[in-house]
């Protein structure tokens, strides 16, 4: 059986110990730096989930009527682990820390860190002072760091219950060798309960008994939500009077915005503007380090993850910027505290420096600010990453990768690469906090929660194929998606972007990857089926990062189909390739430019309507060009064939647009057929030429449903 599914034609993108914990100095197993967490296994039939809490303070009162499902709220939790072995002591030592819960539509990745909380009161009956959850994300002393918590399972279920099983590993940190070793695997049955006073969201509080791998109860774990962010830090920016502060890109995207993308609540402290050159305009690494120590506002890394960025004229050891607090320069032996960048380096007046040739670096706002983010990325424990044009790639590589008509710095990607995003969210505190593990250790030496426990079913596969192997620059790209199901697992019956089951990415000739997802999120319950085959079509033009196909050359389109069955996440993926051809002539180039630079073109393509004049004008620019016209014909025909407030459906206009050469996906033919049928039902007689044209296309595509509908008209 084959089911054809359309996406409404408009697709557009974007808008995802019997062994309690050992005492310090306990046995160490294998040394390494623990691996980050993967997305998690979820769901057991007898365990359940309540609705995710809103991002607002809510009373602790029990919900009524009882919600059917509950899921861990994303964000940072104040975590406390109390080993049972110490429970009979009046003021037992325990461990405090944070648990980071990252969620998207399907995946959950969680990780945490634990710090020893020693009794500090001289009186044994007075308990130690606890972190105040009302103050948000707590910061703990480096010397007390003990464990990375690698979360391996969050078995939230689908039944009406308020418990779930949390599986995790503890990786003990050795301060002498600065490495982690696996302590053991544990599980806790966590239950939601009312929070003690002071928590910002009283209903997002959980407790559970922890058992070791042998099933022996070893302690008690509590988790209380304290912030929508995962981590908290401060960036102090000091500068020379003549140097520009690196605070934002040309579009106004600043430090807080960028780090909020990865769950960091980064506060910028724009501080000194009167740094003094120690020995002339060019700074050595040692001078940078000494100046940081002398001029920063605070050095209390046990209470503030504070990074320092200096903006000065020039640097001895590099043209643009350096994270100097590494290797032999780290005179105070506190790694990764600061970076410095040069405002007065003059960018070479030659290729490949594009639009910033010959400019003084501080005046080239985009690459200048990007360098600041790059260097602070090193301070957060990241290394160079060439997987995309993100922050940790090098400026040289990005500049050399720009392909016409795009020029450097237009090809800068204003985000971290996906693997770096995960590292910033889930690497151990000691990896990314200033003063932690020295710069230069291999990523593989750190633990990290498992990456993605989404199930890739053997019985389901997806095929991705562009409708056309070559597409002219500026045209929307139509992609056919076919989901094959050998049975056993229900699969989505709607492969449109609108349904929310399909997301993906496009990698352009320069290697830059841009994501796309539905502009409209489906809020209805998913319909699942066990059909043998489901097909759908996507029409792609823009994503959140701009045009998906901005230049000529070869492209790779990756499509992920993801869905849940009883809260168990599944995903299948596939890729297809196509070629975008360069402008055929000046008129084509102008029309393509208009389309590619008009964000509303996407919305018009996706949702139609007469209200987005910029979008309609951009679509018309495409229609007025001979090369692009066939590719935009359906977009405009769909718009005019649908009534809009007082305007009636214009089937004549649609018929004139949909000639033989109109490029249409199967989904678009189905959509057009439905519009024609709807018009007929409302009393309009569809032009015979339109019906014939559609029928010919439907027949060529073997779109049986559309053929049948058109025959009945």
């Amino acid at each position, binding site marked *: 059986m084959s089911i054809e599914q359309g996406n409404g034609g408009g697709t557009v993108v974007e808008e995802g110990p019997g062994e309690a914990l050992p005492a310090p100095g306990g046995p160490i197993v294998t040394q390494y730096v623990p691996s980050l967490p993967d997305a998690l296994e979820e769901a057991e039939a007898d365990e359940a989930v309540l609705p995710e809490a809103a991002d607002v303070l809510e009373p602790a009162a029990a919900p009524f009527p009882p919600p059917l499902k509950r899921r861990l709220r994303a964000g940072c939790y104040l975590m406390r682990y109390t080993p049972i072995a110490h429970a009979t002591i009046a003021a037992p030592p325990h461990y405090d820390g944070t648990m980071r819960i990252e969620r998207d539509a399907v995946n959950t990745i969680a990780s945490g860190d634990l710090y020893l909380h020693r009794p500090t009161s001289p009186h044994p009956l007075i308990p130690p002072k606890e972190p105040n959850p009302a103050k948000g994300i707590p910061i703990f002393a480096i010397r007390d760091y003990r464990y990375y918590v690698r979360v391996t399972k969050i078995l939230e279920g689908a039944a009406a219950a308020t418990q779930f099983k949390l599986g995790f590993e503890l990786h003990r940190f050795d301060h002498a060798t600065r490495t982690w070793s696996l302590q053991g695997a544990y599980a806790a049955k966590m239950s939601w309960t009312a929070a003690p006073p002071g928590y910002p969201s009283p209903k997002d509080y959980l407790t559970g008994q922890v058992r070791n791998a042998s099933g022996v109860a070893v302690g008690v774990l509590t988790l209380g939500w304290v912030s929508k962010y995962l981590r908290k830090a401060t960036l102090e920016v000091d500068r020379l009077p003549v140097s520009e502060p690196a605070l934002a890109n040309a579009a106004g995207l600043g430090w807080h915005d960028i780090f909020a993308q990865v769950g960091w609540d980064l506060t910028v402290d724009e501080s000194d503007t009167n740094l003094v050159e120690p020995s002339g305009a060019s700074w050595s690494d040692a001078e940078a380090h000494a100046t940081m120590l002398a001029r920063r506002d605070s050095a209390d890394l046990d209470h503030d993850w504070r990074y320092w960025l200096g903006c000065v004229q020039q640097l001895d*050891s590099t043209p643009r910027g350096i994270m100097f607090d590494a*290797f032999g320069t780290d005179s105070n032996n506190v790694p990764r505290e600061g970076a410095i960048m040069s405002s007065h380096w003059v960018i070479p007046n030659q290729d490949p420096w594009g639009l910033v040739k010959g400019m003084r670096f501080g005046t080239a706002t985009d690459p200048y600010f990007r360098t600041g983010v790059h260097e602070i990325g*090193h301070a957060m424990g990241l290394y160079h990453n060439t997987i995309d044009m993100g922050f940790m790639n*090098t400026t040289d590589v990005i500049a050399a990768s720009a392909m016409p008509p795009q020029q450097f710095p237009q090809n800068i990607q204003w985000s971290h690469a996906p693997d770096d995003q995960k590292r910033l969210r889930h690497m151990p505190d000691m990896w990314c906090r200033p003063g932690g593990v020295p710069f230069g250790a291999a990523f593989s030496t750190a633990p990290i929660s498992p990456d993605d426990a989404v199930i890739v079913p053997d019985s389901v596969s997806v095929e991705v194929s562009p409708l056309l192997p070559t597409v002219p620059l500026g045209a929307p790209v139509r992609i056919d998606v076919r989901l094959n199901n050998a049975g056993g697992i229900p699969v989505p019956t709607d492969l449109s972007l609108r349904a929310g089951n399909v997301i993906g990415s496009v990698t352009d000739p320069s290697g830059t990857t841009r994501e796309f997802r539905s502009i409209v999120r489906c809020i209805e319950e998913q319909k699942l089926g066990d059909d043998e085959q489901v097909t759908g079509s996507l029409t792609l033009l823009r994503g959140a990062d701009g045009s998906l196909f901005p230049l000529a050359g070869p492209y790779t389109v990756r499509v992920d189909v993801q869905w849940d069955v009883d809260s168990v996440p599944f995903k299948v993926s596939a890729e297809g390739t196509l070629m975008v051809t360069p402008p055929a002539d000046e008129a084509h180039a102008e029309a393509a430019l208009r389309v590619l630079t008009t964000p509303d073109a996407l919305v018009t393509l996706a949702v139609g309507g007469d209200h987005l004049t910029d979008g309609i004008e951009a679509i018309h620019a495409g229609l007025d060009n001979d090369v692009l016209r066939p590719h935009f014909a359906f977009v405009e025909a769909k718009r005019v064939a649908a009534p809009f407030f007082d305007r009636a459906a214009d089937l004549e206009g649609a018929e004139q647009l949909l000639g033989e050469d109109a490029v249409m996906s199967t989904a678009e033919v189905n959509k057009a057929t439905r519009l024609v049928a709807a018009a007929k039902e409302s009393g309009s007689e569809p032009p015979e030429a339109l019906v014939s044209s559609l029928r010919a296309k439907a027949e060529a595509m073997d779109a049986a449903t559309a053929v049948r509908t058109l025959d009945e008209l």
Partner: protein
Amino acid sequence: MTDDALVGTWLKESTDPCSSSYPDELELHEGGRALGRMRPGAREHPRWDVGTFRRLDDGRLGITQSNDALGRYAFTLAGDRLTLTDEAGCTFTYRRR
């Protein structure tokens, strides 16, 4: 000698601990790109990961490091062997693949 004489893939021969942070394999490309890799299981990130190289005015070889600093190395190229000495005095050798 031009920079082109250095272009190629180089495998580290030295096992001296002082050279442990330098990559086990180093690619030097035309145009001045440098790419370093460690063997699987290495505990250190390569001091030279993604960067550039060029001969400096003082005759030394400059290779950018993983923290964006420009490392300066005295070097000799003899046949297929490239020997470098860093600023801390550590000497290590690569052989052309």
